[in-house]
């Protein structure tokens, strides 16, 4: 197969993506029929919780691509240049998933059902000392402002980063001075994005979107842990697209060396995730204070035990043992398999973050949620494919591109 520089979707690509979206829509309809339209508020909440879990998870995962671009930009990294258009294309999905996610979140917050977010129930908050105390942070106005602003800023700053990258495609920079200026401009915008990112994903956002489901409970590690979860999945998603494009004869300058580095990211951040997960778990386990342990009671010992420990095994033990070898990180098959495992594992992680509080009596039928997840996967596939086709796959005029072509580990 000859090597091409611009992506055109293979014959079945859009068909697969659209059928995945169809599966997602069917699952949502099925979920609506079985739970969402029910008169029982818990059943209704199960419907919304599924949408919440999936949309937040996939939004944070695609957003990790932009984070990847910005950290490598800030670190003046050059190795990722040969496939940088891939995370760029994935990050183009942020506005799409972002709008869906914000709509779902706001629908839950402003809806009449207070099962997911207790703190939206004004009557209840009056009598609840803890929630009353948290009113300054957990209120509808603040939630709305932060959610909308976050999606807006991620989209705009991401658009600017992509714009900067594409602006060079037809006009190479002639002088060293111009190149310096270009790198400086990139650094400034990437830094702005990182500031927004750290104020959202790394601190306040997971508290608000996910932790407030267990409104009485809190953990300061929670956001870091969520960030690690989504970043490792985000890198896995980038690796999947890189392997897919390689298999179809694109990305001629990306080779084992780049794959090895992506594999290292997947390995390292799996361990980092475990570190944060365990830090949160152990402190609570050791202190043994009832209002803290209540979070882990249904998860580690209750009916969610199976999901909880399975997620721990596939998120830690599997990457640790399988990705440890150098040859495994340079093998396209292993990386593809592990990327799928990691994304699924962290999706399960989000599942056990959301559902024990929403459905404490029985574990919901996970098939529906997987269906909804496939819908989001299809959406990401479709939108990323469109974004990939818009620009050449190599940012060939970027000052650092040579560094990537001769990359060697």
């Amino acid at each position, binding site marked *: 197969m000859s090597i091409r520089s611009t992506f055109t979707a293979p014959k079945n690509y859009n068909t697969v993506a659209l059928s995945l979206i169809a599966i997602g829509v069917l699952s949502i309809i099925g979920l609506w029929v079985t739970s969402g339209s029910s008169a029982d508020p818990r059943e209704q909440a199960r419907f919304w919780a599924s949408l919440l879990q999936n949309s937040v998870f996939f939004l944070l995962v695609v957003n990790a691509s932009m984070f990847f671009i910005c950290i490598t930009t800030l670190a003046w990294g050059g190795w990722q240049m040969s496939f940088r258009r891939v995370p760029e294309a994935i990050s183009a999905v942020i506005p799409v998933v972002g709008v869906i996610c914000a709509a779902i979140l706001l629908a839950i917050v402003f809806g009449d059902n207070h099962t997911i977010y207790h703190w939206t129930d004004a009557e209840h908050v009056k009598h609840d000392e803890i929630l009353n105390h948290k009113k300054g942070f957990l209120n509808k106005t603040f939630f709305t402002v932060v959610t909308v602003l976050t999606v807006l800023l991620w989209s705009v700053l991401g658009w600017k980063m992509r714009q900067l990258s594409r602006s060079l495609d037809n006009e190479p920079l002639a002088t060293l001075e111009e190149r310096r200026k270009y790198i400086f401009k990139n650094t400034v915008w990437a830094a702005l994005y990182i500031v927004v990112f750290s104020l959202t994903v790394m601190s306040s956002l997971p508290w608000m979107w996910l932790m407030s489901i267990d409104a009485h409970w809190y953990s300061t590690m929670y956001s870091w842990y969520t960030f690690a979860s989504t970043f490792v999945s985000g890198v896995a998603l980038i690796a999947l697209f890189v392997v897919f494009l390689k298999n179809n004869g694109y990305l001629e300058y990306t080779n084992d060396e780049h794959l090895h580095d992506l594999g290292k990211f997947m390995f390292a951040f799996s361990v980092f995730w475990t570190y944060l997960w*365990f830090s949160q778990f152990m402190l609570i386990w050791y202190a043994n204070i009832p209002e803290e342990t209540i979070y882990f009671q249904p998860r580690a010992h209750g009916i969610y035990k199976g999901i909880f420990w399975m997620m721990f095994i596939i998120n830690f033990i599997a990457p640790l043992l399988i990705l440890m070898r*150098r040859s495994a990180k340079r093998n396209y098959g292993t990386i593809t398999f592990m990327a799928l495992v990691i994304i699924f594992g962290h999706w399960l992680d989000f599942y056990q973050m959301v559902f024990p509080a929403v459905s404490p009596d029985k574990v919901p039928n996970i098939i529906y949620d997987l269906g909804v997840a496939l819908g989001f996967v299809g959406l990401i596939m479709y939108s990323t494919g469109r974004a990939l086709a818009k620009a050449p796959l190599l940012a060939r005029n970027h000052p650092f591109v040579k560094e990537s072509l001769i990359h060697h580990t």
Partner: protein
Amino acid sequence: MAKKKFIVGNFTDEAVLFPAVKKVRRAGYKLHDVFTPFPIHGLDKEMGLRDTSLHTAGFIYGITGTSTAVGFITWALTIDWAINFGGKPYFALPAWIPVTFELTVLFAAVGMVLTFCWLCQLAPFVKKDHFNPRSTDDTFVMAIECTSATNEEEAVKFLQAAGATDVKVETKDTGWWLGNYANDKMRFEQ
């Protein structure tokens, strides 16, 4: 310590060294080693060296550390001298994870450093021939081992043709010895 004959060539440029290594190997000479002032990416592949087994050793040391920690703490806190800490179970695995982790890292790190020294024959007072002291400064030194099939003159000419300067046939120790370099003649003294 076996003394062996070597043909030693010096290179001043990486760009000349790489094709020379390739030519020497293709011509069938027995490449003893290449000494460089700094690590060079890809030279190991060019020389046909196999991947190091240091990381496999590291993994085994790490596993040893893990099992030592878990095994010892389990024995001490559940069998030998069981103490009730704040109502926790005797087998309080989460509390032991930090120690287990530390011991894993300690075993792996120390073990790998020692293994590395052993593989490279590095130790206090241990000395080895390294052909040309300038390989620690600015010269790439290639040593070809002479076998019974090697025609020395031809090999010297071959190395010169491949870009080496100052090619010499030398007899050197292949092993290590305890002592110092005080009695060695430096090249510039010869």
